[in-house]
Structures are given as C-alpha cells and as structure tokens.
C-alpha cells in the first residue's frame, strides 16, 4: 500500500528527499507522489519537444531551396572531407536510406511522430495536470497513485521504442502510418514495427492517465466542492481524460492490426488481398481526431485559469465554458471524417462536413468568453498573461482557418496542402504550446518555489510570437497557391515564402532558447517564490510553494468559488494589497 510512503517527511516541500544522490534518484524513480510524477513527466515531455523541434528545424532547413536535398547531403560529406582528411558518411548512409528524399521523409515523419505521440498528447495533462489536478481538487493525491507511476514508466518505454526505431534509421511512413504505404515500405526492416509499437504503448500510458483523472475528479473533490465549484482547469482536464479513455483503445487495435498486416499480411487494410486502405483511415482518425482535442482542451483549460487570475476577474460564462469543454469532447467523436474527404464516398463526406461545423461553435463560445473576461478587469501584463493573449491571437487564427477545411468545396482544394500544415500548427503549436508556456510560467513558482526573470521571459515570449507567425503564416499562402504537403522538392515559385518560413523557424529557436535560459537561471538563482504570487483563489495557492508532501496541512474546505475575485481576498494576501470593489455586482 502507499501508506508507508506517505508516512514520513510531513511538512517538508515535496522535493527535498533523503540526503545522497542515489537515495534521491531512487526516491524519485519509486515515488507515487503525483507532484514528483508530474515533474518527471514535464522533464520527459520537454526532452521530446526538444527532439521534435530539432527535426522540425531540419525539415525547414531542407526546404530553403527547391532541390536542396541532394546537394546538402553531398556538401555535408565534402565539408567534412575538407576539414578532416577522411570523408564522413553523409546522412544518407547513416540513415541507410535509399536516396536523399527518403532522408527528408524520415525526418518529417520523426517530427510528426515525436511531436504528436510523445510530446503534445501527454504534454499538459500528464505534466501540469498531474501536478495540479489533485491540489486544485484539495486532494492528497490522484485516485490511483501507483497506476500513475506505472503510466509514466509506460510512457518512457514507449518513447524508448520510438527513439530506438529512429536510431535504427527512422521510418518514412508519415506519422499517420497510412496503408498500404506503411505496410510495404522498408518491408525487410522492423524499425517501422518498432515505431508502430511505440505509438501503441504510448496509448496505454494515455489511457491509464485518463482513467486516473476521471476517477480523481469524481471521487476526490474536497468537501464543499460541487461540480460547478471546480476550477475550469479541472473541467478541461476532465473532458480530456474522457476522450483519452474512449478514443485511445481504438488506435490500439488499429496499430495492432497494422502490425499483423506487416508481419503476416492479414489483409484487412491491404488492397492486394481485398482489404480496404480507407478503412484504416477511418480506424485511425476515429482516434486521431478526438485526440486533437486531447491536445487543445487542456490548453483552453489553462487559458481559462490564467486570464481570470491575472485580470482578477470572475471568468465570464463559467458554465458556458465548462459545458463547451464537455460539448467539444462529445462532438469530437462525430467529425473524424473531415480528414479523409478526398477518399470517402460523397454521402459520407457531406455528412461529416455538416457535423464538423458543430465543433466550431463551442470553441467560438470559449474565445468570446475569455475576451469578455478581460472587460473591466485589473489586467497584469506579465509572461503568463502575455502568453494567454498570444494564445487568443494565434488560436483564433487557427480556429478561423479551420472553417474552409470543414467546407467541402474548399477542403477538396486545400486538403494535404501547406494550408492544412499551417492550420494545425496554428491550433496545436499556437494553441496548445502557447497555452503550455502560459501555464508553465503561471505555475512555475508553485512547482519549484522559485521566481523567474520576468523581463527575459517576456522577451522570449515576444520573440516566440514573432517567429511563430513568421514561420506559419506564410504557409497559408503556400497552401492556397498549390504547395502540397510532405514535399522534399518544390517548384521554384514557392521559394521566397519557404525562405521566410525557415527564417521564422530560427527565430522560434532563439525564443525557446531564451526561455530555457530563464528557467535554468530561475532554478539556479531564482528568488524564493511566495505562496501566492499572482493572487489566485484556487486551492493550489493555499499551500506553500513548493507544496508539501501531502499538499495541505489540513484537508481544505472550499468556502469560496475559484473566481470570486470581487468578494474574496486571496490566501496569503494582505487586504490592502488586494483592493476589492466597494459594491460587488450581484450574481
């Protein structure tokens, strides 16, 4: 049982363990404390983000020139030959690729698989969610602490499988593993199977986390916390967890069938045996469309928190936002077809097109509510708030550019072009990653007990914002003008826009490096963080920063709503530092 683990260090912060580095490592590796596990997730996820980012930079670099691939690789070889006497085997040999384009194909597959399966799906729920969901509920831990640790280990094993298959040369199937290409390419190697297995295993980790969170929200709310007293972050994570539980098993069986397809040609997805490749796409997107809401819902959840706390304003339309989260989770199972409009029958295409618009409505409602929350607030301009505003900017673009992709006539033109690439980067990166950064800066003092340098962080935020838009806004025009996805070479006309996009990617790199420096500096020499630096009202601000072993000295009792800034002085604050309006509006 977990009791013996919880017995000792009462009152200490969660991360000062026993003396001795080995003892510390063992304590972390064997911990069932959701906070430690959250931090472990954070580290792993950020490492995967780094790998995926490197491959993204490689992709962008390749696209500097219409027919660069061959030259680049030869140049690389000769360059080394000039400096050192002997010619280094160029990348093409290292990856044991047939030709130069295959290297590019493997790198963008690498980017997709890393970013989707290993970074963005677990990013917010598994790291920030793990850390803050129980605290915000006023619980000591998640429902199943050991399951929680297990899911982290499963996640790491999955990542290891993926990295192993990359070290064996990487796969060129594209992260969607479309048959029959994925069942026939590299047929004499098993690195493809390794990558599929990686996705399969990561699915289990995702399922376990989801189950854990759903049960936690249902059973471990603090006394006095009804469903509608929960912070919206919890609502978002809850909707996410529901999707994780219900959608991920389907991709499990899909990838299983895919593996058997490769090993023994069972033929279900294989046109050469009477199977149907489009059926695979149905199987895959039944999971992978809901999963894009696994990616974005936690981001939306963070934004709801950040905006309301930093503008000291009750979130506008609490129930609307809460229900729209559930609505998105529900509708997300109805719309997967819009990924395969160009492969489907006409009737199904029309059906899915109509249903797809449904998902836009709750999303729009959320954006309206967030902006309405700013009205008459007391808005602090700091990094979390800045990132929240960046989110509102980029995510609105991402959402609005989704409309032509739900509209049949235009989607037939834009499908599989750079327009789509730009669109989902505006939602995934401009949405989830920006929200992730917002949440990271919002909760960093709470997680590590150190403040960070506000100026450098804001500088990094601005540079990331510029770099991001420079990188991806150009790609909308590339797409509409006729640049297909996943092209290693392209016609000369598109070069200008591609060059701009690549420069933007370097700017992005700079921005994230600044953030990295800020965080390291904060960990090394940051000043001690107060328990409640922003004046938040949710429960995580009542305990110390960093939180103690069991989160709270006494089980908290919820006396005020999470957003009652008009009537409540936040914990650890002096009323004169936190002026309240004289005549709070009646509601």
């Amino acid at each position, binding site marked *: 049982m977990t009791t013996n683990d919880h017995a000792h260090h009462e009152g200490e912060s969660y991360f000062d363990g026993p003396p001795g580095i080995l003892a510390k490592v063992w304590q972390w590796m064997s911990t069932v404390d959701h906070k430690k596990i959250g931090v472990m997730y954070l580290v792993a996820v950020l490492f995967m983000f780094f790998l995926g980012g490197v491959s993204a930079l490689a992709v962008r670099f390749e696209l500097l020139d219409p027919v660069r691939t061959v030259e680049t690789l030869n140049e690389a070889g000769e360059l080394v030959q000039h400096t050192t006497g002997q010619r280094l085997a160029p990348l093409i040999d290292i990856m044991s690729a047939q030709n130069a384009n295959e290297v590019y194909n493997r790198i963008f597959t690498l980017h997709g698989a890393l970013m989707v399966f290993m970074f963005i799906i677990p990013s917010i729920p598994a790291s920030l969610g793990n850390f803050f969901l129980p605290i915000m509920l006023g619980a000591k831990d998640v429902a199943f602490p050991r399951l929680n640790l297990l899911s982290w280990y499963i996640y790491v094993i999955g990542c290891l499988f993926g990295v192993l298959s990359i070290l064996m040369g990487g796969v060129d199937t594209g992260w969607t593993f479309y048959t*029959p290409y994925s*069942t*026939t390419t590299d*047929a*004499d*190697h*098993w690195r493809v*199977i390794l990558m599929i297995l990686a996705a399969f295993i990561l699915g289990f980790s995702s399922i376990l986390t989801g189950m854990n969170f759903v049960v936690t929200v*249902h059973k471990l709310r603090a006394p006095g916390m009804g469903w509608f007293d929960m912070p919206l972050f919890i609502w978002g994570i809850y909707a996410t967890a529901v999707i994780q539980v*219900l*959608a991920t098993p*389907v991709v499990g069986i899909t990838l299983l069938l895919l593996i058997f397809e*490769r*090993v*023994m*040609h069972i*033929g279900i997805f*294989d*046109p*050469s*045996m*009477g*199977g*149907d490749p*489009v*059926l695979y796409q*149905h*199987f895959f997107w*039944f999971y992978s469309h809901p999963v894009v809401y696994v990616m974005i819902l936690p981001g939306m959840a963070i934004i709801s928190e950040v905006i309301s706390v930093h503008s000291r304003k009750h979130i506008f339309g609490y129930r609307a936002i809460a229900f729209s989260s559930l609505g998105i989770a529900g509708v997300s*199972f*109805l719309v*997967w*077809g819009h990924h395969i409009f160009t492969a*489907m*029958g*006409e*009737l*199904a295409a029309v*059906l*899915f097109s109509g249903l797809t618009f449904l998902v836009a409505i709750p999303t729009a409602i959320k954006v309206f509510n967030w902006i309405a929350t700013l009205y008459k607030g007391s808005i602090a301009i700091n990094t979390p708030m800045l990132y929240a505003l960046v989110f509102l900017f980029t995510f609105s673009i991402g959402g609005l550019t989704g409309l032509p992709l739900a509209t049949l006539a235009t989607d037939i033109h834009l499908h599989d072009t750079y327009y789509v690439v730009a669109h989902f980067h505006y939602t995934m990166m401009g949405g989830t990653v920006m929200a992730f950064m917002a949440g990271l800066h919002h909760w960093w003092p709470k997680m590590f007990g150190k403040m960070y340098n506000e100026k450098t962080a804001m500088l990094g935020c601005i540079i990331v914002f510029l770099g991001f838009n420079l990188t991806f806004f150009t790609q909308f025009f590339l797409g509409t003008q006729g640049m297909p996805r996943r092209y290693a070479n392209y016609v000369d006309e598109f070069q200008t826009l591609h060059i701009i996009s690549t420069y933007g990617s370097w700017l992005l790199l700079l921005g994230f490096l600044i953030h990295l420096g800020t965080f390291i500096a904060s960990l090394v020499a940051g000043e001690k963080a107060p328990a409640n630096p922003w004046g938040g009202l949710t429960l995580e601000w009542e305990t110390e920063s960093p939180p103690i072993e069991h989160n709270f000295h006494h089980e908290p009792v919820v006396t005020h709503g999470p957003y009652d800034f008009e009537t409540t002085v936040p914990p650890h604050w002096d009323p004169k530092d936190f002026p309240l309006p004289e005549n709070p509006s009646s509601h």
Partner: protein
Amino acid sequence: MTNHDTTNHEPHAHGHPVVSWQIQLGVLLVLLFFTFTTVLFYNAENWIETAFQIHLPWWVNVIGAMSIATVKAILVCMFFMGLKYDKALNTFAMLFCLFCVALFLGFSMIDLDTRDRVDTWKKGEIVLGGTGKGLNTPSIDPAFDSTLSPTINTKGLSIVEFNRQQKIEQKGSEKAYWKYHYKKHPDHRHPADTNNYFATLGYDHQINLPDANKAVPRTGLTPGLFHATDPTTDPTTDPTAQADQDANASTKAKSDDTGKDHES
C-alpha cells in the same frame, strides 16, 4: 453508502449489496437457455433452407442471433457484473462507450456502403480478391520474427484463386484436382468448377443433410461474382457466369434476391 433496493438479498457486506445465490443460479440457467435457443434457431434455419429450399433473408439470421446475444449480454451486465445494484455512474460509463462503438461502426459503414451513390463504378473492387501485388514484398527481418511471413507472388490473382491454381498444378490435371476436391466436399458444385466436373465425376445426384463443417451454398453466389472484374464490362460475356447460373439453376431465384439483400 446509499442503500439500494435489496429485496430478496442477504444482508450487506459493509454496505454493498450481496446478490443472493438463487438469483445468480437463475441467471445462469436463463443464459444457458438462451444459448440453446440461438443454436436451435440457427439449425432450424439451416433445416428450412435445405429441406424446403426456402431461403430466409439474411437479416432474419442476423437479427435473431444478435438480439439473443444482446439479451444475454444485458443479463450478464446486470446480475453477474452487478450493474443492477451498483452506482448508476458505472452503467452510464458503459452506455456512453457503447454509444461511441455505435458511432464508429455506423459512420464507417455509411462511407464504405455509399461510395457508388454518384458514379456506380466507384463502388466495387477492380480486381476481385485483391490485386495480389502487395504480397511480393521481402520477408520480415529474421532477427525480428523466426516464423517468416511467406513472400507470395500471387501473379495478380486473389490469394484464394492462387492457392487453387497451385493445387491444380500439384495434382497434375484439373480433373484430378476436382476429384480430390469433391472427395472432401461432395455436397455441391464449386463455383469455380467451370466445366462441371461435379456432374462428370458423378456427384450431382448426391444430397446430404447440412453439416456445419461443410460449406453449403445456402445463398448461392451473387450473379457475376467471379467475372465482374470491371463493373463497366458486360457480365454476361464471361463463360463462368453461364456456368454459375446453370450450376445454381435450382437456387437461381434465391441467389438473385439475396444478391439484392446483400447490396442493400
């Protein structure tokens, strides 16, 4: 703990209802009864089919079996898994999951069934049974899999046709092959038996009662199953079409309407 309706239950195990053994045994017996029923239903249908040559439409069989299975599943969930006495939340979780399953099946089938709504030629496969091309890929790396997946080149035939051709070569002559075949499956003429060795080898008079382990042509084959390689080409040009039709002359009527049934 909220107490549930616990009529004819024994006292609670620390607040949780205990299902009485009478109920459990009764449920088991009902389940066994339903199993018997569905098997009976199935065999009755076979019997009607072969004895009276009446082909019941396909949905009779499907709806019968599946509805019985559903009833059984509900019984197991309610009593053995205790949903009847449990929190409503668990039931809700199960129901919502079934709702997702329904969406999954429904939409996928809608797409695969309605591809030919605008152009009829978008429906079918071009080469029936698959092109047989994807199979001549190299074997999986031995380091990974000791039992290699065989690398077959089916020469563009479906793998079933391919295996039959292999067997025919192995047996030397078509006649020898069909002799071998009808020794094992004497009940009806194989649709691919184009020049009617079924008759020449003297199996046509033979009528056996159905045995589930023997393939009985209960529906007959869809007209033109083996020759409509291109939906636009005229089916009647292919000799096997004729062969099929007079082979199943007795079951022709049925094969037509089943054809319609299956398409619809």
